[in-house]
């Protein structure tokens, strides 16, 4: 598939993802902030869950996307796939930062600490630093082929952290609460599960929409750079 055809497909379908995400997030915010009940122990603060958990889940989804796109790039060596990797990394960093900030805000009233060196929090912070390193690496290298290859290798190595983040609450004694939805079942009240699911799917679909927009953005920037005489071999014209 040519890059222009791929961009055309993104442009054609992106709005539907945006509309579905908007509907789900609006419904999630309404049910989460207005209709769902407060927690017995935490009180109203539990409502932070409806934004913190979707952000953290989407950060991991974004890194997984980066991982699979990196493998795809190393296999096909397609410039548009490298654009998708770059776009996924930027979005993963954004959602990871959001997850860390909202987690710190939730931690203060529940644990009486903004930050603790808990396995879940530490492994999540490592993902943040990996993504910062990934984006820095992309700015250090001028050679387009080398930049894309080294960045893809770094992203694949960094993926080791994802299972650690997911299972950290099972493997170690952790202050962070265990998984609420797992193969053992769902340990969350139904009126909390509805906004939780709406927000999780909504933010996940919003990420897909943002990925489509950002991939176009990076491709178009490269296209203009190519027009100016730089990276001419890279852009598919």
């Amino acid at each position, binding site marked *: 598939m040519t890059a222009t055809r791929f961009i055309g497909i993104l442009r054609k379908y992106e709005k539907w993802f945006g509309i579905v995400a908007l509907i789900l997030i609006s419904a999630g915010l309404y049910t989460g902030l207005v209709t769902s009940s407060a927690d017995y122990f935490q*009180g109203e603060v539990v409502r932070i869950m409806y934004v913190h958990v979707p952000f953290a889940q989407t950060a991991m989804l974004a890194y997984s996307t980066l991982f699979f796109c990196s493998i795809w790039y190393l296999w096909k060596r397609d410039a548009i796939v490298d654009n998708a990797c770059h776009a996924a990394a930027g979005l993963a960093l954004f959602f990871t930062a*959001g997850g860390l900030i909202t987690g710190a*805000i939730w931690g203060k009233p529940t644990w009486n600490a903004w930050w603790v060196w808990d396995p879940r929090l530490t492994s999540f912070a490592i993902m943040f630093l990996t993504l910062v390193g990934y984006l820095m690496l992309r700015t250090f290298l001028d050679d387009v082929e080398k930049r894309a290859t080294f960045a893809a290798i770094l992203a694949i190595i960094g993926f080791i952290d994802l299972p650690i983040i997911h299972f950290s609450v099972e493997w170690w004694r952790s202050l962070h609460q265990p998984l609420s939805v797992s193969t053992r079942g769902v340990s969350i009240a139904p009126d909390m599960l509805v906004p939780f699911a709406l927000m999780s799917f909504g933010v996940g679909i919003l990420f897909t929409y943002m990925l489509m927009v950002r991939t176009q953005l990076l491709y178009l920037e490269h296209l203009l750079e190519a027009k100016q005489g730089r990276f001419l071999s890279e852009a598919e014209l």
Partner: protein
Amino acid sequence: MKRLYIRWTVLVLIFGSITCLGILRYDREVKTVSPAKVSSEGAKGELRLLGMIEAGSFVRGVEGKPTRFMLSGEGAKVAVVFSGKDEDESLRELKTIVALGKWETERKQFDASELALDPNYGFVTSAYVFSLIPLAFFLFYMERRVSLLYVMIKEEKVYQSETQA
């Protein structure tokens, strides 16, 4: 570009209106008052009094008698009489709570009919503000940049000139 700005203006207006309605509802139904304000200015009607149970003041109600304690906040103390039942015995000294009830000006005490946890709405609001507002800005920046790039490419005729070359 025009469609982008119209779409985002509509979104900002919708979410701005919902936020205003939320703030109005908060002021009307959820906002708490401090013991300092109640003791100095007095108050009428149903109130939500936020404060900490003073050390040494807590007397648990037994045999039909009400629970009594002093609630402190912002440098003032107010006597609270709670006639309901503390089913789980969750009340203790130095705990921050919200007492729902009425201020009795003559007896200088607060008659609480219900007790609740400190809602910590500041933390909830901060979490949503620090996540959703940057998300909206980031999204707007990307959409605007993509629209601008399409316009620039169209004006520059990138495809045409390069393919001709």
